[in-house]
């Protein structure tokens, strides 16, 4: 048996704050976020990289946190749903999802919002087609996606108008 340590100690930069955390080395970023940092806003739907519910942003890119080992995320900038609002003021994407039916049961919402944020950070005025494409890896069983597209479009408009 090779010497695999029981636990590793790492500093993870999550939502702009350095977090000292110790965890079993086989744990995924999803597990460390939820179980060791109590950031349960990030969800899991399959833990096999199939549903997109666990998407977070790592260095600005959407990433399925169920497929990434947490130890590989040291020194990288991790953003989760909990870090999106400014105090009690919702991010325009969050406000739009709440207002336009983008969220029904809410279980896919975190992954959807984070994935949409990565899109809008790069493309402030995406077409409907681009939005559909960007969210194609995030499954939703409630909405039929349409009110999600509308939410993203509404948030994009709000962001362009400087509402944040």
């Amino acid at each position, binding site marked *: 048996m090779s010497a695999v340590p029981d636990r590793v100690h790492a500093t993870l930069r999550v939502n702009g704050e350095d977090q000292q955390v110790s965890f079993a080395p086989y744990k995924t970023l999803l597990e460390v976020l939820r179980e060791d940092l109590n950031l349960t806003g990030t969800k899991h739907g399959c833990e096999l990289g199939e549903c997109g519910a666990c998407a977070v942003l790592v260095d600005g890119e959407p990433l399925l946190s169920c497929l990434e080992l947490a130890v590989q995320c040291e020194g990288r900038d991790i953003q989760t749903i909990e870090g999106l609002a400014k105090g009690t003021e919702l991010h325009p994407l969050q406000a739009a999802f709440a207002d336009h039916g983008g969220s029904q049961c809410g279980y896919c919402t975190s992954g959807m919002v984070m994935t949409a944020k990565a899109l809008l950070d790069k493309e402030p005025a995406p077409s409907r087609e681009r939005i559909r*494409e960007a969210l194609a890896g995030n499954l939703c069983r409630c909405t039929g996606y349409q009110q999600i597209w509308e939410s993203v479009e509404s948030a994009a408009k709000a962001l362009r108008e400087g509402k944040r």
Partner: protein
Amino acid sequence: MNAPAKPREKTRFDTIGKPRRRVDGRAKAIGQTRFADDLVLPRMLHAKLLRSPHPHAIVESIDVSRAQAQRGVHLVLTGAEFPVPYGIMPVSQDEHPLARERVRYVGDPVAAVIAVDEQMATEALQLIDVKYRKLPTVASPEEGLAKPEPRIHDYGERGNIHRNQSYEFGDVEEALARSDHVFEDLFFYEGNTHLPMEQQASLASVEGDGKLLLQSSTQNPHYLHRQLARVLQVPAAHVRVIATPNGGGFGGKCDPGNHEFVVAKAALMLGRPVKICLTREEVFYQHRGRHPVLMKVRTGVSNDGRLTAMHLQTLLDGGAYGSHGPASTFYTGVLTPVTYELPRFKFEACRVFTNKPACGPKRGHGTPQPRFGQEVQLDKIAERLKLDPAEMRLRMVTQPDSLTASWLHVGSTGLAECIRKVVEMSGWKERRGKLGAGRGLGLACSTYMCGAGVSIYWNKMPHSAVQILLDRSGQVTVYCGATEIGQGSDDVLAGLVAESLGIDPGWVRCVTGDTGITPIDLGSYSSRVTIMMGNAALQAAGRLRDTLAAAAAEALDTLPDRVIFSQDRVFAAQDAGKTMSFIEAIALAEAKFGTLAAVGSYAPPKPPGRYKGAGVGPSPAYSFSACVVETEVDEHTGWVTVPKIWIAHDIGRALNPVLARGQVIGGVYMGLGEALMEEQAFRRLPPKLSSALVHRNPSMLDYKSLTSLDMPEVEVALIEYPDPNCPYGAKEVGQGPLLPVMPALANAIHDAVGVRIDEIPITPDKVLRALEKKEKGEAPRVGPESFPSVPYPAPTFVLPPWEGGDGNELKGQEGRKAA
């Protein structure tokens, strides 16, 4: 019978009908909603289930000693700890939390490990030694009918038949014999599953007072509460179930689950919190989804396209357990006569046990299958009789305040308006037949209940109850056992109470789905919550309003029935200058009458049918939907693209149009997924690999569902004819809009390329096969070719209302002859 609470003066609304952010929207958007697996308690342990690798076997022995001795393991449970069986329906108590003598499908739980963490529990599962003796398996209902032995269960009708029933409303053969045309078609609808984004999870603990608490992703905390008390043999008053917000349900979290009993038992034995979260693969085994149904539909029609009679036969693949099966069996027929005038109706249904995960209720529960058959057959009828499919349907929609041949009371109906609306929106008249090669339009309609007329267990008590507390700080706290599964029940509750009291919904705090605190509501199933909870809420709010009005009238120098509640204020009707704030009114009333609280409750009206079995199908109201689907079919690959869908839904009144529209589009999405790709299918492994019946695709990658890229735009029309039995007229919207999508798609494919796919899902291989048949000059159809001989019983014979019946069964041949 409770009369629904009637709003006194509300004709203009402050809240109802206006788009607004749902009350739980903020928490969901910021990731703060706590789903079951997000909950953590100190000293919490984790459970994992060992599942059978065999589809049918005797459990000869289980040795848990090695697992028990493993580091980190606190407890290993087997069926020996669970002598009492359970089942959601009183007539199907056929499951044990862990198998005792027998396993019945691949995935049937046989043992559980409770350990320090999931990893240790999973490792210890592999140390449990189970000796199985394999038994022959049943893969399909046809096989089950042909092979009565070995029986999967030792109860049921006989052999492997679980339920078998027959009803006849008027002499159907006689009516068919004198019809101008009789159409006979076979259809098959493959099973599919709910696939909620949230996997089932449960956390059991023993509270400080020694009582059991189970927090669980369940749609039906009340039924689970009853079953927990029964299986664990503890008083129900010592059990509390909190339904956590469900990350989607769609019917999949209606049945009590094995895992819920296991963690509850373990928590009681260990005195520590125990949590479980099913893996995605396990969710496919828990299932309880859409029954595969084979159907035979014989329909008599007059030359002008009116129905004369229908004989519907269904054969359900029930899977390994009863689940909601007795109800599912009824539902493959009972709602069929609600859409169109049908003078006579015969309905035979049979559910057979098979060695696969149990089927149960999925959105539409039993009705999408026969509706698919009927609506595709109507398209064939229209084609043969050279009638426009929309016009033909319009001429025979059921009328408001009418009875069906089976004695269901149809109250309000907007079906005709729904049909006219989708015809208009889709450009049906102008575009149909003119879209060019490979493109087509198809239309279909449907209906759904607004709540089942009777409870799952027989009782005369209310189906829903609401309690409201008001206090001088302006708090309006509303308690109800209803369960938020994403559909927006908390928002409906807050919106109705706010409207009734004339306040902003933001004032209202909802406490729901907690059997320890909230008055009983039967659960989030059968599209019952808006209607039943809503009527109970309006009754409670109305009582409080009366109390507030009595107190405020004095101060406003008016009469109590002249007091108006609006915009967070209370006014004298004749003089808007005489006013006070809502909080002032509460303070006056609290001073005058003491602490302010009121309850309201609701039970559906007694159904008109009086024959045995008449309890399934009646509802306080029915919603109606019509849908047009556009398709493009690639004749080289069989690939079906859907550019657009139009749907009109008769909702009575849309309480919050954002949510209503979301439910409609979500229903269309789920229907389209079922129509095109979703299937919970099984295969038998070759003998050298155990011959087991295994799930073909127990993962989200292999179980195909529509992604954001596949989903077409949906144009929604909400048709609003308020229904007098419903709160502010609001009917259901959670299930109905799914139902017309599958037949509309099949009809559109026929319009596009002239082939009939009488089978769901409509996958490219089936389309290609039908196109090849068409090419060869054969009947251009793919679908079932035969219907087995099913030993349906002699029918319960009931005369339709218009043939002099009184809703009772006519016994024996004498009654029949008299007819």
